[in-house]
């Protein structure tokens, strides 16, 4: 309590509060630009921290970190262009809501979900930082492999009842993730002699191509899509409290999943978002509507990806191990400020640790308040006529994809991914599993092979770890259950979800053709 009051004294300074507001604005803008994301946002402001005092510099970094994760969801919801991989799960329901004329509500769900996720993770950080750090240390390659297996089961969830096509998409994504340098031997794979491919296929251009460019092609080709685009309502609107309470389980589970996954070094917000999304799809109150514009899907993804911000600081502050590239950059800033994160931090400068916790709370509140202003300004874009909208999407996609590595090759990847994404839409292959596979593939492979080296090539030895056994067993049960449901529906002759959607689309098309005639 004494440390908490000392920490309160440290942050109650106009300089700190102004820094939080500035950091929030920068984070929202940079996070919303496709392809940039949290690492770029934190790196951009890093030089400013060198000339600042310790607490304002932490405030700037924390505010930029939280709001950049949140900002990535704006373009995901409004333009079907996820700013960052962690927003990919938000696209599925967020953009569907925007197309249904509920873009303002979707942004409200994004902001509220992010706030809850961020605050819960801060509380988790305050109460459980040392304990969580100890548990995280028990996660070796075998346990992490189990966790990734569990995360992959969300492919079944996002594929509706078209599981076969969903898993084909997942396999394509896993393969794309393995192109380039092998993480263990350093040998290049599937480059076919191309130097540009040897460093692998960057996720951002693929993400932008699959979602944004394929959407542009789709809108250009489909008159139905053009009409639906005119429905978009710009603005920001919070759903009534009753609606939030109906989804409280997902709010809690998403926050807990995000905090826990964030505490595991090297996993990241995208993994957390997909695990949470899969959990909501399986256990959520509105699970049958998730994927078709249901706020519970947004809540699941947003609480988890924002809760990662607090979770990722657990190993960073408590152990001196950065959980992801963003916290690695933040740790650099702390070291430059003369603070050495690690076990001694809690003993030597506890007031600074508690000040960081309070700054996280303030940053999350500032992010929520700025969301109202920012989304009103930003959502004006979607009320522009379609030709202007499409050119904005294309230009942002091009610059975002180029900006990741400054390489024109990535733009060709984006174009190819766009064409493939459109063909996948025609072939009814869901796009989301490709992204899930690509995000999780490198982690899955690395941990599987490291685990196999540890167990001398015995996969069965993976089950000697109780954590891994539970996680892998859980993943197997979920996959088998979804296959059994698929077989049951097939035997009963029920049409699949996709069939129903296509049938309704065709009937609408026929009706509108009839009217025109």
């Amino acid at each position, binding site marked *: 309590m004494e440390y908490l009051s000392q920490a309160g004294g440290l942050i109650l300074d106009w300089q700190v509060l102004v820094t939080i507001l500035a950091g929030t604005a920068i984070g929202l803008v940079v996070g919303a*630009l496709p392809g940039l994301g949290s690492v*770029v946002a934190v790196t*951009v402001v890093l030089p400013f921290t060198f000339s600042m005092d310790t607490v304002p510099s932490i405030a700037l970094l924390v505010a930029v970190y939280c709001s950049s994760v949140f900002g990535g969801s704006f373009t995901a919801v409004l333009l079907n262009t996820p700013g960052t991989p962690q927003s990919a799960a938000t696209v599925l329901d967020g953009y569907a809501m925007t197309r249904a004329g509920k873009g303002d509500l979707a942004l409200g769900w994004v902001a509220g979900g992010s706030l809850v996720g961020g605050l819960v993770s801060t509380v988790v950080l305050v109460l459980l930082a040392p304990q969580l750090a100890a548990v995280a240390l028990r996660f070796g390659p075998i346990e992490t492999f189990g966790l990734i297996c569990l995360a992959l089961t969300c492919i079944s969830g996002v594929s509706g009842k*078209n599981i*076969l*096509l969903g*898993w*084909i998409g997942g*396999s394509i994504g*896993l*393969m794309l993730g*393995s192109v380039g340098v*092998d993480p*263990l*031997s350093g*040998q290049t*794979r*599937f480059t076919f002699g191309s130097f540009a491919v040897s460093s692998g296929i960057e996720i951002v251009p693929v993400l932008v191509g699959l979602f944004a460019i394929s959407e*542009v*092609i*789709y809108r*250009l*080709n*489909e*008159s139905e899509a053009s009409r639906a685009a005119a429905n978009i309502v710009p603005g920001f609107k919070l759903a009534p409290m009753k609606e939030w309470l109906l989804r409280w389980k997902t709010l809690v589970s998403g926050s807990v999943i995000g905090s826990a996954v964030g505490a595991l070094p090297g996993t990241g917000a995208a993994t957390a978002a997909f695990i949470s999304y899969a959990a909501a799809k399986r256990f959520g109150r509105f699970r049958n509507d998730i994927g078709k514009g249901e706020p519970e899907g947004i809540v699941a993804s947003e609480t988890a990806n924002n809760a990662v911000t607090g979770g990722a600081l657990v190993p960073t502050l408590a152990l001196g191990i950065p959980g992801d590239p963003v916290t690695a950059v933040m740790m650099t800033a702390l070291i430059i400020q003369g603070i050495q994160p690690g076990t001694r931090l809690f003993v030597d400068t506890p007031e600074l640790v508690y000040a960081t916790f309070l700054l996280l709370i303030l940053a999350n509140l500032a992010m929520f308040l700025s969301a109202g202003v920012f989304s009103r300004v930003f959502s004006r874009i979607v009320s522009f006529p*379609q*030709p*202007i909208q*499409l*050119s904005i999407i*294309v*230009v942002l996609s*091009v*610059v975002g994809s*180029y*900006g990741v590595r*400054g390489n*024109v090759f990535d*733009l*060709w990847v984006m*174009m190819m991914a*766009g*064409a493939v994404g459109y063909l996948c*839409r025609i*072939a*009814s*292959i869901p796009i989301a599993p490709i992204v899930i596979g690509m995000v999780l*593939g490198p982690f899955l492979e690395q941990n*599987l*092979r490291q685990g*196999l*080296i540890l167990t001398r*090539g015995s996969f069965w030895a993976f089950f000697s770890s109780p954590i891994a056994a539970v996680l892998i067993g859980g993943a197997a049960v979920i996959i088998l259950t979804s296959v059994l449901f698929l077989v049951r529906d097939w035997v009963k002759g029920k*049409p*699949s979800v*996709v*069939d129903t959607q*296509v*049938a309704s689309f*065709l009937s609408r098309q026929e009706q509108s053709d009839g009217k025109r005639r």
Partner: protein
Amino acid sequence: MTIREEVAVRLPGAVLVAVAAILLWHTFDPSYSSRLSTLKFGPVFFPRVILTVWLLLSLPLIFVVPRALRRSVLEHRKVWPGVFFVFALAIYLWLLPGLGYLLATFLFGAVVQLIAGDRKPLRFVFWSAVLTVMSWVCFELGLEIILPAGKWL
């Protein structure tokens, strides 16, 4: 259903099987054989597992076409605007290093609006210029991300 339509609905499955088979065959390339004793599970171990799964899942699509895929493929679509767009994007990417970001993006932005159905030249030229300059200022000046520079701009 005509033979042409039967071929069309089985084409996605056939393409998926062919791609998986070619990549799987590629994993047996001698260049991937590793001499490192620690790498019993070498660089192509994981891709082989994934490609085998991909192949096995895609194979049934040739023989039993899911209804969703069948209906979607048989829908009659306008494809030319999309084809023009991809063609324009390819030309833009090809010209980008030579012309530079400002000039190439200005032209491409105008072409995209033209393909999207805007028939007011003043409007699409104006918006294309605004978008190009704003994105350039934001990324090149604001975020210091160096965009391709051409001979003239």
